[in-house]
Structures are given as structure tokens and as C-alpha cells.
């Protein structure tokens, strides 16, 4: 067990390192010295002399090879840096240093810590909703497969997945929030201050996230359940005199849920890295919205690098957790 975890941990770390190298090197090479030129030109007409440009480039490390720059950046994550140059100023950047955000002038880590809770609250609520609704609907559809309700579910999955998500979210916001005022406010209210308010503000985003995503979970669960329900051990359970509902939700679901959980783990990790549309439309000040704003010119490169890296970390972690969880869910899998 521990051997497996150590091995998986090492490979996870490797994936994260590779991702960070890719992200860093691609941006560094792709943009060339344009960030430095940008800052230089902002000094005003005529003030950007070649000497000045060279000095900015030197401050920003463009005179050194990319490997050294990466090493410096990576080291900063663990020990911090004290001379990060942004637009004519140098900043103090304590560990974990992911650079300075041009938008705010704060360290990226400082901003991230502010944005992340909103995303976590959104993700946890939305994901719980679509997992619970999806699995429930899917199980019932499998129980009554072939019925009208079952066909409706399968059909609605198709419809929902063929409508762009942002359209659903936008319409929900316009009608349920703006017009009918059922959910008058949306956004993130700090959960530590007033959880009730957090819930009422988050209700609509959760609902939209939950209802649009639950259909694919319902369909997946349904497929798994239909397969499981034809297993011999389901017949055995019925032959013992187990109630139909118990056969369904204990015996069948127990087996059918395992692959569903696997998919869910990975989905949830992506949610944590920010749901751009949801956050944008419902004005939730989270990681997704933050990353989107960072894309406007001038690109806030450090923010982009950080969100990408964190996404990689979360997906890799989720993968690892799912694998470990698997051995608890399926006793036949031993990860020795």
C-alpha cells in the first residue's frame, strides 16, 4: 500500500514538474522580450533608450538562458524572492512565490488565497448537487429502463449536452435572477462571515452547475446500473428476499458507483481550478474569473502560469486520491 502511494506520489510530482517546465518555457520563449519592451515603452516617448531597455531586460532576466530563469522561478516557489521586477519597481515576494500580479501588484499567491475560497464553495456545492442528482436519476432510470421517464432522461441528456453551457447559465441568470428575482443576488459572500448568505447567493450557480452536469452523470450511472442489474449477484440478493429498493441502492449501486466516482474525482479537480463561465456570469470572484481577467492585455503571465500549474496539481492529486479510494471501494483491488 505505502509502496504504491510513494510510487504514485513520485510520478505525480514528475507530472507537475513537467507541466511547470512546459508552461514556463513556452511563455518565456513565445513572448520573447516583449514584456520588457512593454514596460520600457510605458516610460514615455523618447525615454526608452536602448540602454534603458537593456537594463530592464537584465532586471527581468532576459539576458540569461531560459533554464536559469526557470530555476530561479521554481526556487522562488519554495524559498521566495526579493527582487521581482514589474513595471519599473522591484517587489518582495515571500514563499510560495509565483511572481507578482500586474493587475493588482500583489503577489500571485496572495491573490490566489483570496479567490480560491469562492471557487471551492462553488465547486463543492455544484459537484455535490450533480453527483447526488445524477446518480439518483441514473439509478431510477436503470430500475425502470424502457419506461417513458427513462427515455425522457436519456433524451434530455442529449439536449442539455448540445446546448452551450454558457447559454444555460446566462438564461438562468437573466430570468431567475434579473427578471423573476427568485435568486436576487448571486456571487460569493465569505462563508466564514455569514454562511446563510453564502448559500443564498450561491444557490443559483450551484443549481445551474448541478442540473446541467447531472445529466451526463445520470446517463453514465444508468449505463453502469443496467449492466450491474443483470449480474448474478443481483439475482442472488432478490432470491434472498432483499427488498427491491435495497437491491437497487445497496447491492447494485455499490458496484455501479465505482467507475462513477473515478470520473467524478477528475471532474471535481477541474472544477477546483475554476469554472470560467459560471464565475463570470454569476459574478463570483473566484479562480476562473481571475484567470480570465488575467488574459486581457497586458497578459498577466504569472497568474496564468499559476492557475495552469495549480490545475495540474489538482488533477494529479485527484487522480492519486481516486486510485487510493479505488482500493477501498473495490476489495478485489489491492494496491500493494
Amino acid at each position: 500500500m505505502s509502496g504504491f502511494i510513494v510510487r504514485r506520489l513520485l510520478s505525480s510530482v514528475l507530472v507537475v514538474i513537467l507541466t511547470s517546465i512546459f508552461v514556463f518555457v513556452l511563455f518565456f520563449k513565445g513572448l520573447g522580450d516583449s514584456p520588457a519592451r512593454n514596460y520600457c515603452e510605458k516610460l514615455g516617448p523618447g525615454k526608452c533608450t536602448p540602454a534603458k531597455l537593456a537594463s530592464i531586460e537584465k532586471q527581468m532576466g532576459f539576458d540569461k538562458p531560459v533554464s536559469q530563469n526557470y530555476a530561479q522561478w521554481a526556487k522562488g516557489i519554495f524559498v521566495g524572492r526579493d527582487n521581482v521586477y514589474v513595471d519599473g519597481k522591484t517587489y518582495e515576494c515571500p514563499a510560495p512565490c509565483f511572481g507578482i500580479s500586474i493587475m493588482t501588484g500583489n503577489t500571485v499567491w496572495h491573490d490566489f488565497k483570496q479567490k480560491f475560497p469562492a471557487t471551492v464553495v462553488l465547486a463543492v456545492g455544484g459537484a455535490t448537487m450533480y453527483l447526488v442528482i445524477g446518480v439518483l436519476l441514473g439509478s431510477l432510470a436503470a430500475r425502470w429502463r424502457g419506461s417513458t421517464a427513462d427515455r425522457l432522461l436519456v433524451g434530455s441528456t442529449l439536449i442539455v449536452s448540445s446546448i452551450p453551457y454558457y447559454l444555460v447559465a446566462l438564461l438562468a441568470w437573466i430570468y431567475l435572477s434579473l427578471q423573476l428575482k427568485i435568486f436576487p443576488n448571486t456571487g460569493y459572500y465569505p462563508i466564514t462571515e455569514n454562511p446563510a448568505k453564502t448559500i443564498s447567493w450561491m444557490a443559483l450557480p450551484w443549481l445551474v452547475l448541478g442540473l446541467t452536469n447531472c445529466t451526463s452523470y445520470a446517463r453514465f450511472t444508468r449505463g453502469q446500473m443496467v449492466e450491474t442489474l443483470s449480474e448474478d449477484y443481483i439475482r442472488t440478493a432478490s432470491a434472498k428476499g432483499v427488498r427491491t429498493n435495497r437491491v437497487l441502492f445497496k447491492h447494485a449501486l455499490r458496484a455501479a458507483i465505482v467507475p462513477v466516482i473515478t470520473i467524478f474525482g477528475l471532474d471535481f479537480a477541474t472544477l477546483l481550478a475554476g469554472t470560467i463561465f459560471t464565475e463570470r456570469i454569476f459574478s463570483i470572484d473566484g479562480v476562473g474569473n481571475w484567470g480570465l481577467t488575467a488574459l486581457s492585455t497586458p497578459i498577466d503571465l504569472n497568474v496564468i502560469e499559476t492557475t495552469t500549474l495549480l490545475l495540474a496539481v489538482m488533477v494529479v492529486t485527484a487522480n492519486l486520491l481516486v486510485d487510493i479510494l479505488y482500493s477501498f471501494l473495490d476489495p478485489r483491488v489491492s494496491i500493494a
Partner: protein
Amino acid sequence: MSTDTFERPDDMAAPASPDDPFLVVENLTVKFPTHDGLVQAVTDLSYTVERGKTLGIVGESGSGKSVSSMAVLGLHDPKHTRLSGSIRVGGVEVIGASEDRMRKIRGNDIAMIFQDALTALHPFYTIGDQISEGYRIHHKVSKGEAKKRAIEMLDRVGIPQANRRVDDYPHQFSGGMRQRAMIAMALVNDPQLLLADEPTTALDVTVQAQILDLLQDLQREFNSAVIIITHDLGVVAELADTTMVMYGGRAVEYGATREILTHPEMPYSWGLMGSVPDVTGDADARLIPIPGNPPSLLNPPEGCAFHPRCPHVDKVPGDLCRTTLPDLVPGDRGENHLKRCHLANPGEIYTEEVLPEIAPDLIDPTTGEMIPELAAVDPDEL
């Protein structure tokens, strides 16, 4: 006969008479409507089993063996099944009984042992959990007590260190132990009727013998009625008091086991005998397979379902075999041996044509007659 599901209020069930056999199946017909048409899985099947007795049901795949026993437990999905006839378990009508009522019978009065214990046991629950679940459904006991009962049952079916193995998962058991656990699970509520659906098919021969012995011991201990479904005539010879041979969803021969095995009167039964390898026989001797394939239940042959494969069709005058379904009636061997065949003199054909071919060592070479002990079986005595 109506083709629709038989609706019968629960309270109309016939009162149990003490002389009545524990299980009475009368004119059971099971049909499955499919996209391609109506599958006639079981047609007009009748049999009885008494407490302490064993009925063996023999036949090839698709002959309706398992379908009929699933019907006894009411395990067919009523939406996709048409049932008619009558199944009485201890005097209680099963066909048309409410789901609630059936659930109280399942696993309690009637229990089933399935063929492949690896797939029939839930892979994600421990053996102990699965046995005690069955116990707790029908008894109001605590989890602790149910577990104690599970250990007791595992011990009874011969699982060593039952108190430790009770927490194992099915995949940690060997094939034979899994089948024992399956039997323990079936017997946990002391059922009065045990349906064993090919209980030894997935096991190797030595384990098969152990399991059969175990079943016999347990039957004696609990005095339960047993139906053993198999395609292995050896199993039937070992366990069954009476035997029913099924073909194409119908009973084609029914009688005391010894009688059926020594004096079969139906060409399909002869074919089954011919397909059994003889351990003491000549190693070069060929098995004689039954030519052709099992009949389509969607579109069964006219007349006798076995006629397309029957080598003796010509011995019946006219087109009788092809046009008319023979009744299940007593043959030459008395009231208790029923057969479904048009042949007028099956006994003669069997000793003169069939036996010399399938089991030459049973014929006395000097007289050309069947060995006397075998010939002397009195059908009424069994």
C-alpha cells in the same frame, strides 16, 4: 389455457393439507415476449416434491430447467414474463402473489443455490455480511447475532476457521469454499425447499463430490425438499429420488430416478445416456452425441419438439412425430413412469438397439439380454 399472467388474490391460496407434497407445480407455462416474438421457455410443466425428497431436473441448456425454478421463487420480472398455471409452496400459491408476500417466502421457505458462486456472490461485500443479510431479512436479530449465525453456518458447511473467514471477500475463497458459502447462505434460514441450480457445474470433480455429499447431509438434517437442476446424469443418480427430463421447455420423461436411468423410454433420454462417459469403459470408446441443436423456443418444431433430432422417427407410423405432440403418459413400465413419445415399444428398442451401442457392457454377451439386476427393477417399488 390462458396466456396471461394469472391473477389470484393471496387469500384464495389453497389451505395446506398435511398430505400434500410441499411443492406442487401444475401446468406451469412461462413465456417471454421479445422483439422477435413470444419465447415459450416452459410449457405445461407439472411436478411435485415432498419434504425430505429430491427431484432432479435434467436437460440441456435452454430446456427450461432454470426458468421453471426461477418461477418457483417468483424471480421473473412480471413486466417481461407471462406466467400461467399454478405453483403451490406449502399450500401457498406463488403465481400472482404480491411482491411483499413473495419476499417473505424467498430465502426463508425457499432458498436457491446458484451455479457459479463467484458471480452469484457480491464481490464487494464479505461472505459474512452476505450470509447475515439473508438471516436478518427474515429474523429480527442484531448484527452481532446474525454474524454469529453466519459463522455457525460456515462452520456447518465445512469452512475451516469460520470465525476468521467470515470477514473474507468471495474472491479470497477457493471455488469449492465459495460454493459452500453459497450453500451456507441458502440454508441460513432453514428453508423447507432448496433449489440447487447446477450447484457443482463450475467445480472440479473431487470438490463436486464433496459438495454433493454436503447437500445430502444437510437435506437429511433439515428434512427439506430439494430440486437439483443439472445436465449431469451422475449428479442425478447420486442425489435424486425422482427425475424429470426436460426438452424444449416440456417434461419428456418423469419417474423414479433409478427407473429413468435403467429403463429410459424416450429417445432424448437415450441420447443423454449416450453422451455420458463411462469411467470404467474402453478409453477409445466414442461418446455418442445427440445430433443437431436444441430447438428454437421462439418457433418450436411442430409435433414432438425432439423429432428433428430423433433417430427413431421412422419407427412411428405415419407423420405422427412431425404433426402431433405426444402426451406425457405412463408407458410400459407402469403408472409412475411418464414419457412423452409416440414409440410403441420403447423398451425393446432400448435394449435391442440403443443399449448395445451406448453401453455394451450392460448387455449379457451370451444371451443378448440386459443384465438381470438392471432388468429386474420394479418401477412401482421406487
